[in-house]
């Protein structure tokens, strides 16, 4: 069996040192470390190719990916759920039905001229879009995760994921998957470009404008939401500006809004007066104040620190933060030179950076596919359900602050969920699986009752109508304008009729071939191979020994050759257990 390069972190003394490592310091293990942090990891063949390119070649091919072909990227295929009547979608159900009460029509749907519940179609229409955009966003998140697996530009995807959590908006509030799609595109295109340019584009991005209430920020009545977050979370960090700066900044952004998917600036609503912001005075607009923000030394440090913590490790000394900030500032906020400096540095290959990063749930699932050599994220388990269970809902970060990351990814519950997701990927429950896109959750009971012939009053009753007397049941039916509970169900049905179904295939890979190709002859060698392939931090000897004993028991022999015709599930269980170890959660 071929000798493999084992775990080889650099010396502890390399910590905080941005000097590039030498050619002699480069090997397979360091290439594996690089690919895990810069991207999502890879197969031994992919790591071998990087190792062969040398440090400089490897870093260049990852960071300067523009001219590398990326043939597997496909555009998102929309289900066709949106139409122009949904433009200026009401912010709430009361607003939707009020519009109908005033104009007889709302979201392209007329109020019924007679009969009970005349406004029901309008209420249904409102819920239709809530469900439609939620369901399409699930498809969008799944599509994006597959790009992460299939891309020839892993750094581009990794950085796009960073920007999504950094400039965080969520579909729950934005309520328009098209705007979220626009954002993914923005984050991919701006992934490794200039951060100032990206921030200006984000500030003019419809999802962000809506998310932080830009349409309410007008001359004479500034709304501070965006102005505060842009400094606190997107650029400088708290404590580097005053409350007055927040108010002046908000004035500069007045008049910015969006029309469907386009940015607009309304000169009549813009406060063109003089502002004093971060010590500068002028008739600033939004772009001006963003440029001033990027002149602050703290901005470069804040952003460089954020990138470093996302890619390398949680712990960052003030000294290294300063050094990284200087690199970013010296290159006028261009990301590529900073990434090149980080990925080439002694610090990056030092002991402290080995195993210093806890994978996010999306990273965890994408990396699983890369490690297993599977070409796509499976349909079973469902991508969104799996990542939500592990604590990350793509396109729905919990707040404008994004995901806390680091140790916050690991609680007893979330850790258990990670192991469970690994099992669902390795040994999926193909016959027990049910597609949640076609289940209306708690509304399902309403649908069942309606189809059993109950009227709306009985169907929406708290108690089971089949256990009521006819008299009680009939008494439940009432005159009303509309019934929102029924709308929740009808809206789901209407959306699901149009929704493109997600293919529900299992992950495609085969461990038997991998193990045989590795030259393993015994179960001990098979386990050692899988540990080497899957883990970036070695497991405890006791864990390794227990895995060997397990696999031997499962196969009924310690000879891999003897078990070659039936060992796939035993190997998969072994991989499931490896992916449940503490070591698999970190890189």
């Amino acid at each position: 069996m071929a000798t493999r390069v084992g775990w080889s972190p650099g010396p502890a003394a390399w910590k905080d040192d941005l000097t590039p490592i030498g050619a002699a310091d480069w090997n397979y293990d360091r290439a594996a470390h690089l690919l895990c942090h810069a991207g999502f990891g890879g197969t031994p063949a992919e790591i071998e190719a990087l190792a062969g390119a040398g440090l400089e070649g490897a870093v260049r091919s990852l960071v300067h990916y523009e001219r590398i072909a990326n043939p597997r990227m496909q555009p998102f295929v929309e289900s066709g759920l949106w139409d122009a009547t949904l433009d200026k979608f009401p912010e709430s159900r009361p607003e939707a039905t009020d519009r109908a009460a005033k104009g007889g029509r709302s979201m392209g749907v007329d109020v019924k001229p007679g009969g009970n519940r005349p406004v029901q179609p309008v209420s249904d229409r409102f819920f239709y879009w809530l469900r439609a955009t939620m369901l399409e966003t699930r498809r969008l998140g799944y599509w994006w995760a597959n790009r992460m697996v299939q891309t020839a530009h892993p750094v581009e995807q990794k950085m796009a994921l960073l920007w999504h959590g950094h400039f965080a908006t969520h579909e729950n509030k934005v309520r328009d998957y098209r705007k979220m799609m626009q954002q993914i595109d923005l984050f991919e295109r701006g992934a490794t470009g200039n951060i100032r340019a990206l921030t200006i584009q984000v500030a003019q991005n419809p999802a962000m404008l809506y998310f932080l209430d830009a349409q309410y920020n007008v001359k004479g009545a500034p709304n501070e939401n965006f102005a505060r977050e842009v400094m606190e979370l997107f650029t400088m960090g708290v404590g580097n500006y005053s409350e007055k700066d927040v108010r002046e900044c908000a004035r500069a952004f007045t008049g910015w809004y969006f029309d469907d998917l386009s940015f607009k600036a309304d000169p009549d609503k813009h406060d063109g007066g003089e502002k004093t912001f971060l010590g500068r005075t002028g008739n600033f607009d939004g772009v001006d104040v963003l440029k001033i923000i990027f002149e602050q030394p703290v901005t470069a440090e804040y952003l460089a620190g954020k990138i470093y913590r996302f890619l390398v490790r949680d712990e960052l000394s003030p000294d290294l933060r300063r050094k990284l900030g200087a690199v970013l500032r010296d290159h006028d906020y261009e990301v590529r030179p900073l990434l090149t400096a980080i990925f080439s540095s002694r610090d990056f290959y030092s002991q402290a950076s080995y195993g210093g990063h806890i994978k996010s749930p999306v990273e965890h699932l994408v990396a699983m596919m890369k490690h297993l050599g599977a070409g796509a994220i499976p349909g079973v388990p469902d991508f969104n359900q799996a990542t939500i269970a592990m604590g990350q809902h793509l396109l729905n970060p919990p707040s404008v602050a994004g995901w806390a990351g680091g140790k916050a990814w690991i609680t007893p519950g979330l850790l258990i969920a990670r192991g469970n997701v690994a099992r669902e990927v390795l040994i999926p429950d193909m016959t027990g699986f049910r597609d949640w896109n076609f289940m209306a959750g708690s509304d399902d009971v309403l649908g069942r009752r309606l189809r059993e012939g109950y009227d709306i009053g009985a169907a929406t009753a708290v108690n089971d109508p089949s256990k009521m007397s006819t008299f009680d049941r009939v008494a439940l039916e009432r005159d009303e304008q509309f019934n929102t509970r029924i709308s929740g169900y009808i809206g789901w049905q209407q959306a699901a009729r149009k929704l493109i179904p997600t293919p529900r295939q299992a992950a495609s890979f085969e461990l038997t071939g991998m193990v045989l190709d590795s030259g393993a002859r015994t179960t001990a060698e098979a386990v050692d191979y899988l540990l080497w392939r899957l883990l970036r931090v070695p497991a405890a000897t006791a864990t390794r020994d227990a895995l060997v004993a397990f696999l031997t028991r499962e196969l009924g022999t310690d000879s891999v050759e003897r078990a070659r015709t039936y060992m796939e599930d035993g190997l998969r269980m072994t991989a499931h257990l490896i992916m449940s170890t503490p070591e698999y959660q970190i890189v």
Partner: protein
Amino acid sequence: MTTRALNSSGVSRRDMMRIGAGGLGFGLFGGIGPVPRVLSQASRAATATTSGRILVVFEWFGGNDGLNTIVPYGDPAYYKHRPTIGLKEKDLLKIDARLGWHKSMRGMQQLYDEGKVAIVQGVGYDQPSFSHFTSASFWHTAAPNSGNEFGWIGRTAAALDPAGAHENLIVNISDSQTLAVKAEKHVPLVFIDPMRFERGVFAQEKSVLEVLAAQHTPAGDAHKYVLEVTRSAAQASAVVRAAWSQYKGKENPDLRLLDLDKVAALIEADFPTRLYYVPLRNSLFDTHVNQAAPHDRQLEYCSDAIAGFFQEMERIGRADDVVMYVYSEFGRRVPENTSLGTDHGTAQVNFVIGNAVKGGLYGTPPSLTNLVLGDNLETTVDFRRVYATLIDGWLGADAAKVLGQAFPTIGMFRA
């Protein structure tokens, strides 16, 4: 290779005994028949560190608009500041000639009328932050305009049990650990969905689970952390699921407890936990725009959940032992904004609830005419006074030690 006797849930006898010794009165036989309630009242008293008193913190993240929660309808300045979103006198649940509950809060009003709710007005801190995250971190650490590595609940645990021997002293019902519960010696039990809180394994795999977190030299800080959590997860998941499967409140379809249902389940199962921390999920309290409908709804959900929770405590027979504390990281600006909402503000209203509480109004209501810091309420009660009251007056721990300095407490508990 290690072979140890395992029961069908994959947990060794030794682990079960250890959890039992930690004060947990039932075994880990998740899925094989009913779980016996072993701990009697007497044995509970013997195993708990000082007493059976429980504190439940219910955090209303987002910045609740206190002025539209406990409404100063008797003050004409209120309507001057809020000509459109001000709540009309006729819609309120009156407290006195000046104040009324928001109409959605019938559940809490009833508890108040029973004399079980302390309303503390004007709670905040000097030089307030208007950032959700910064202000929340100040409240979590009880260190305004400063910081602390550990949360105030985590430090309270250390004061109650300096050795850190008491297992599951802190429970945090959340997706990820709240800073408030971060503790030096205690590992808070953090979960949100009891039924997902279980390792899915095939029978053959169980032997390996035992050694997943085997003795191992950690490669670094992150590794050390994940190793520790792996060890505690195995034990915690079994006991939580057992408690949840036994919880009788699930059978009542009218109960809408938000995430307080998990707290009720653990209390019914005689968990040794004394500190529960529940941050509100999917908060609608950040009401910059068109605030009426979402605020009405959010207050109704929260108020109903609290009333339902105490109804459950009565059923379980623990209502005398539980106090709940409700707060938000800040209140909102006094004048409404032009979007029919309110922006981030300062002082706010807190609630302390329970049979042990002497209901009534506490603190000095801030003036609505003498505003500070750009249209904001002046803080009249430092929030650490409320914390000190809970730590010292209710839990019987040394508040000065937890908070780093002595704060005057508020006499809101019955003798």
